[in-house]
């Protein structure tokens, strides 16, 4: 078991490492990362001309004249040995680490709240839908799910704002700090994954209900309640657990847009702002952090899967 865990952790670290290389290369090797663009974004307004002197200045300051691999090596050693993720090009030389540590909590809160909605709303509705297959309730749930998967999340967010903030004035639009601020972004973010989970749970339940051990449970004369909850649900939810891990990743990616709309001060917003202002250290670090979170959650869910299914052994 320990060997398996060590192997998975090893792969995790390697993947993060590789992802960081990819992100770094992307951002530095492409025209947008050149000294000229940086100078244009940081030293002057976007419309004005950049002087040659500015370019030299920027190149020297950020070591942009060195070979790419050396830039990466410098960056990596700074990260690993000093926990130094670089300094923001934009925010007056604020260490990126500070920016990220401030941003990570709001994102975790938002992602966590959305995940909670997905689990608490999605799973029961999926189970209900499966048990009462083809009933009016099931049909309503399925139609709603199919539509919810097709709505763009940012549009849902805007519609929610239109309805709850502007028309009804029940909830604030932007801001961070209270539960009221959390509701709209969390719901907007959770809608799509919830609909997906409802359908996955429903399919899994239906497939489980068709299994021979359910038929035998009926033959045993067990009560409906016992058959559904002790046998069907338990078996049906196992594949769903791993998918929840995957969907956490989508949630993380979704925070990018949702945080921008609601001015939620999380990593997503930091990333988008960084992309627009060509703040390369911020963008690289945000990507690495997001990828790390995604991979860690995935690994956690995989291990959980091994724990809850007695048939699986660690190889």
């Amino acid at each position: 078991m320990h060997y398996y865990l060590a192997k998975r952790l090893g792969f995790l670290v390697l993947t993060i490492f590789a992802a960081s290389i990819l992100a770094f290369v992307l951002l530095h090797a492409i025209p947008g990362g050149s000294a000229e663009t940086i100078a244009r974004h940081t030293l002057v307004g976007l419309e004005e001309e950049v002087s040659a002197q500015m370019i030299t200045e920027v190149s020297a300051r950020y070591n942009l004249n060195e070979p790419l691999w050396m830039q990466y090596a410098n960056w990596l050693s700074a990260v690993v040995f000093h926990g130094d993720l670089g300094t923001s090009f934009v925010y007056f030389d604020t260490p990126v680490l500070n920016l990220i540590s401030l941003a990570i909590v709001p994102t975790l809160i938002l992602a966590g709240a959305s995940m909670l909605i997905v689990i608490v709303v999605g799973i029961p509705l999926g189970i209900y839908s499966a048990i009462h297959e083809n009933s009016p309730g099931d049909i309503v749930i399925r139609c709603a799910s199919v539509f919810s998967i097709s709505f763009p999340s940012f549009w849902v967010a805007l519609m929610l704002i239109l309805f709850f903030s502007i028309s009804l004035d029940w909830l604030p639009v932007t801001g961070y700090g209270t539960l009221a601020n959390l509701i709209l972004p969390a719901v907007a973010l959770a809608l799509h994954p919830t609909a997906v989970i409802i359908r996955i749970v429903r399919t899994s339940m239906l497939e489980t209900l068709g299994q021979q051990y359910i038929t035998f449970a009926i033959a045993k004369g067990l009560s409906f309640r016992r058959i559904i909850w002790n046998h069907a649900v338990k078996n049906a939810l196992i594949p769903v657990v791993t998918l929840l891990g995957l969907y956490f990743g989508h949630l993380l990616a979704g925070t990018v847009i949702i945080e921008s709309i609601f001015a939620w001060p999380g990593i997503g917003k930091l990333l988008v702002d960084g992309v627009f202002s060509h703040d390369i250290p911020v963008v690289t670090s945000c990507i690495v952090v997001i990828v790390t979170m995604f991979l860690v959650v995935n690994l956690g869910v995989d291990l959980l899967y091994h724990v809850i299914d007695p048939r699986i052994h660690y190889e």
Partner: protein
Amino acid sequence: MSEDVTVIPAIRKIPVTNSTSNNKNRLIREIKKRLGFQCCLVLLGMLIIIAVLAPFIVPYDPTSTDLPHKNEGPSTAHFWGTDYLGRDLFSRTLCGAQTSLIIAFATVGCAFAAGTAIGCIAGYYGGIVDELLSRGIDLFLAFPGIIFSLALLGLIGAGILNMVIALTLAQWATFARLMRGDVLSIRNLEYVQSARTSGLPDRRIMLRHLVPNAIMPVLVLATLDVGSVILATAGLSFLGLGIPPGIPEWGSMIGAGKEFLRTAPLNIIVPGLAITVVVLLFNILGEGMRDILDVHKDQVNIE
């Protein structure tokens, strides 16, 4: 214990004996059974025709502004009203369909081609080739959602081609992984083994035997992916990335119109509904295909 109704879970599996009809007949029969799927096919056909002909059939030039008539509601002059610059929403929405579909089909086409090729090679050859390619696949899969495309677009700038590249790079790995899995499960089946022992060149085995059988689920994925790509495109252009300013695109229309949420919500509602409807159609198509192709899943034999 008391229960009002004992709802015993219905037993669904239907026993069958030997099936005699061939695949094509069965396919047609399955499609005939599904009215919703047929409607969906018809609507998609109409959508594609509209998208292709859009620039020719729209009543107004989608880019011509008309500031005195900005943010107007639906009228006889403007079917769906005007946007914040006085441009006709109906025309812009129709042209947006063209943009979205071009990007979506190009992206899915490339991702599908690259993904299935790489996945097939990885699954078929195994060994070190598989290890390397799998690591590559995992690497790209480590970037959730639009993170990768976002960063890439932010730096290479706007443009339809750039958009397609950015999205393809984000999508191909999903196809590759699925294809690899399919190929792995089919590779060891007898008929492939016999093809190998009879000395056929690898490439022919792959093309003739493996690919046709392994590719079905991947095709279904491709159809479903079109919807995802349209949503991703809209999301990125909503943020302001990827789409050059002149070209009408639903996401950027919403992005630009969001300031007018309070005053002229049609700017946002119309393109949003357009996205929803198109993605919905592709989702129904994809799921209908998955349903039809998997039809033998719940049948058992009589004893």
